[in-house]
């Protein structure tokens, strides 16, 4: 009897060890990757400073192309999602707030949910899915097809030529898209509120103007900047690490997207906690 009990304890200890071990390994793996990505960022910054006067015309052209692809071409999608999300928040808001008789805090709810949290996060998700994946795939293909090597033999540092326009382009695009998302989704919300519950449009607008303060704008900008940088950096990092086999591209892209998503949520929580707690 005592022996059986001892065996069960040993088994439980073994499983506990296995679970904590794999959790620890998973955590360490993520931590190493994060440190590696930070290292990649530092190297990119150093390279940018070193070659700041080189190839400016060419870089400007690539930067504009990146803005067009990430920013301009995703406007339609962002517009649709923003309208739907704005309407959804207002529908849920009205349903819940009517029960407690505080329909007048609708503008406050819109500010909190859309401007502070959902807007930046959803825009980051859309940009990750659309442009982040494209960047990771492009870098992956360039690595596999030895195009990176070709660039190096042209005396061009790929970290400068490929990374800088994408980093700046995606960051600028994300900042603009978040502003656009917030405007469209609040407009969508107002339209739904006006149509469903006959709340005067201008009353909602003046409530909103009162609710949005400087901190919200700063937080929105900080989030937009951090998300843009994170998406471009993580996707390029994984693209460059593709190796030599073409079969490495899909897993690397999936890793890039998952990492982007996790990091964006993590930074979102961190920034919100820093500013609002």
């Amino acid at each position: 009897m005592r022996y059986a009990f001892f065996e069960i304890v040993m088994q439980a200890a073994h499983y506990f060890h296995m679970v904590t071990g794999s959790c620890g390994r998973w955590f360490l793996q993520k931590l190493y990757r994060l440190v590696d990505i930070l290292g990649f960022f530092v190297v990119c910054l150093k390279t940018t400073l070193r070659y700041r006067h080189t190839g400016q015309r060419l870089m400007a052209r690539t930067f504009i192309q990146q803005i067009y692809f990430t920013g301009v071409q995703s406007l339609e999608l962002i517009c649709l999602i923003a309208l739907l999300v704005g309407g959804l928040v207002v529908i849920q808001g009205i349903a819940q707030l009517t029960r407690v008789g505080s329909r007048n805090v609708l503008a406050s709810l819109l500010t909190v949910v859309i401007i502070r949290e959902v807007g930046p996060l959803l825009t980051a998700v859309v940009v990750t899915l659309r442009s982040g994946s494209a960047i990771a795939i492009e870098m992956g293909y360039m690595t596999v097809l030895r195009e990176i090597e070709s660039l190096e033999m042209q005396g061009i540092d790929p970290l400068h030529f490929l990374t800088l326009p994408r980093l700046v382009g995606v960051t600028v695009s994300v900042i603009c898209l978040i502003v656009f998302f917030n405007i469209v989704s609040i407009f969508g919300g107002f339209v739904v509120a006006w149509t469903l519950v006959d709340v005067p449009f201008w009353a909602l607008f003046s409530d909103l103007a009162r609710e949005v303060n400087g901190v919200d704008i700063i937080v929105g900008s900080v989030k937009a900047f951090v998300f843009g940088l994170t998406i471009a950096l993580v996707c390029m990092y994984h693209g460059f690490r593709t190796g030599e086999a073409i079969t490495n591209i899909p897993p690397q892209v999936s890793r890039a997207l998952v990492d982007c998503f996790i990091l964006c949520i993590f930074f979102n929580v961190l920034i919100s906690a820093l500013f609002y707690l």
Partner: protein
Amino acid sequence: MGRQALIDRIWLEAVKTPILSCENLEYCEEDGTCLFSELSFRLETGQRGVLLADPHRCATILLKICATLISPTGGQISWFGQNSDQIDGPGLYKLRRRIGFVHRETSLISNMTILDNISLGLQYHEEMVLEQSYDRVTELLKQFELYEYRFLRPAELTFEQRRLAVYARELVKKPQLYLLEHPSLDLGERVYSLLLDVFKTCSIEDGCAFLVASIIPEVIHRWGDWVLVFDKGQCHHFEVGQFDPSIYRESMKRRGALLSREWRGE
């Protein structure tokens, strides 16, 4: 010392300095297999060296070491009198602009047109506006019969045209050292002769040096002043007159080392 004498002295020094120099070069893989060791050679201005190797991987690795893409595990290598350990990151990129490297797998950037691919270096390093850089490469494009395909992307061209575009891209750089792997690969006899003429002009007029890797011994007649033969980890140096391609070819054939399709074009 007079001005002319000073210029002459500087010129003589420049000519005397080898373009590429390797001393006791060694490359061993992670599992300890050494592809070559104690390899020494010099490539002077206007000289042309040929690498024949079995397996060909030795030659590929040596070319990549000479192109600064990988580091040797032992020995010394210097380019234009500059030792490898004296060159830092930015210096390495500067050096690469002086080396034209056409590896058998070298590719063009697939999302750029042929014109952009060839003029990329000019746009990046020399800050040229698009039209200026395009003008600079037009002559070469016409010579290589690529002018009418200049706005196409690499995937839309034939293997031969793509290969020519890679050569054009390297020629635009005006490097002093060319490292070429299988120069005849994917090229028809007419185009290959055209390319040879262009490179001969580079060698005679600009004093460019060439290191060519091949598996075809006859290549020495067209390209070489000397030949390095890698055989079972050993390296043998021959001058053109001392080397008999037919003996080498026979020995390779006996081992079944050469594939028939790789004889094409020679």
